[in-house]
Structure formats: C-alpha cells, structure tokens
C-alpha cells in the first residue's frame, strides 16, 4: 500500500486581493513544513496516526494558522483551543475542548485517546488531565499574535464573528 497524506490550514473567504505576496509565501512555507513533518513519518514506515499528529503539531506551531500559537481570540480576548484525533484501525478517538494554556492540543487529544477511558475532555477537566500527563503549557502571550488581536478589534467594532481567514462575517 502506498502512503498518502493531506492537510489543511483553514478555509474561508480568502480573497486574492487581500493576500499579499509576502503572506502567500508565509502560508505556502508553513504548509510545506507541515507536509514534510508528516511525510517524514510515513516515508520511514511510521503509522498514519503518528503522521497526522506530527503534521498538525507543525501547523499548531506556525502562527499564521488558527490553532495553537496564532489562535483566534474570543469576545473576551482569550484563546480557547480544541482538537481531536482518530485512529481508523481501532476506531479509538480522543478530543479536547476549551484549552487555554496547552501548547499542542492535538498531542493532548492523543493522550486522552491512549491514557484515559474517555473520548473527550473539556475545560478545567482537560487542563487538569494535561497537568497530570505533564503536557507542555505556555503563557497567554505565546498564543496571541498581533494579527489576531487586530482581527478581534475589527470584529468587535463591526459586532461580528468571523472565520479565521475570512472577510465574510457571521453577524
């Protein structure tokens, strides 16, 4: 069986005229880095589960994407991160909701899958589980970028909610 890998970094109303050549270069570079992370796992004979975890972790580490570092902000100016992972061979799954300090939510989702009897942990329960598992946490400043702060200010001014890469609004 040949390996195969695909990834996304979000969707929305991504208008060409709003995407500068410099930004497009940053996005494409981030996609290539993430693809390389998953590809390295699969080329070495690793599992699909490891490949998707490494790919998503690479995307979480890149501030241009809306996950982990670079997450969008709630109306209160906080980050609330969610993640899930699923193993097609066993139908095992793990998910986390409302994380505020865990550096890589997808890794914690996998730990929920592998080290808890549950499929999903949320909010304080997920944070407590993260501490129990020794998950790496970061200060709020790690997750918040100037770009996302500007997006929040604009959304507040217009009284709308918007997708991470969107100029299309859900009022």
């Amino acid at each position, binding site marked *: 069986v*040949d*390996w*195969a*890998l*695909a*990834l*996304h970094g979000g*969707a*929305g*109303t*991504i*208008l060409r005229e709003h995407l500068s050549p410099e930004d*497009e270069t940053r996005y494409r570079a981030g*996609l290539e880095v*993430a693809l390389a992370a998953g590809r390295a796992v*699969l080329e070495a*004979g690793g*599992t699909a*589960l490891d*490949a*998707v*975890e490494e*790919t*998503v972790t690479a*995307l*979480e580490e890149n501030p241009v*994407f*809306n*996950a982990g570092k670079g*997450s*969008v*902000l*709630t*109306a209160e100016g906080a*980050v*609330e*991160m*969610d*993640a*899930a*992972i*699923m193993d*097609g*061979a066993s*139908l095992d*799954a793990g*998910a986390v909701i*409302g994380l505020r300090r865990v550096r890589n*939510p997808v890794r914690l989702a996998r730990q929920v899958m592998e080290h808890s009897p549950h*499929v*999903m942990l949320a909010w304080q329960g997920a944070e407590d589980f993260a501490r129990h598992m020794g998950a790496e946490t970061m200060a709020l400043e790690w997750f918040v970028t100037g770009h996302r702060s500007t997006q929040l200010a604009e*959304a507040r001014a217009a009284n*709308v*909610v*918007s*997708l*991470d*890469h969107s100029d*299309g609004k*859900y009022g």
Partner: protein
Amino acid sequence: TVGAVARDRNGNLAAATSTGGMTNKQPGRVGDAPLIGAGTYASNRSCAVSATGHGEMFIRLTVARDIAAMMEYQGLDLAAATYRKVHEELPRIDGAGGVIAVGAEGAPVLSFNSEGMYRAAQCEGAAPIIAIFED
C-alpha cells in the same frame, strides 16, 4: 482550523484536527473540530476526514462521518461522497468550508466550497501539491 489525514503503508487511516475557533466567538462556543463524526473521523472501512469552516453547519450535517457512511452503505467512492457533502448539502445551509479526506487507496481528496482553502497533499512517489485557491 488545521487538520491532517493520512494512510500508512499498512493501509491504516487516521485523522486529526485542531482549532482556535472563530474570531470574537462567544466564550464556550465549540465548533465541529473536536466533535468526532462532525469535523474529524477515521475508519479503515471507509476513509479519514478532517474539516474546516463554519462549524455549526458541519455539526448539523455530521459531515465527516456522513462521508464515511456514504462510502460504507451506499458504495460511493471518496470523491463522490465528498462532493455531495461539500458542494451539494453544505451550501444549502450556508455551510462554508471544506474537507480533506483519504481512503484505502488512491490520492487524497481536498474539497471546499469557500473562496479558498490552505492545503497540501502528497502520495508516495509523487510530487507534493500545495495550493490556496481553486487552481
């Protein structure tokens, strides 16, 4: 939102999705990404799926699991099942966004009904694909 789907050399499939949600969202709002069957799903019997977009709509249509179910119960191939969900059903309820999916064989399917989707894919022995807009 970000996500990945993969098939390894043993034929096993997996999916993962991670997100911050929507800008200026109500605290406590949860979209489709962490909901197994809505934004994330994987089964070796059908496919692995990760979604991105207007999460409430993806939840209402249980997008990821429904694509898998169409393959399992209707015998649709991955491209047809994905097309039906993303281009025929989601737009009817203003569901903007897309999915990436991979099955037991063949290349991944990357499908979206929005203006663009940041995406990349590669199969063993083939060149990588990196794209943003329709082309």
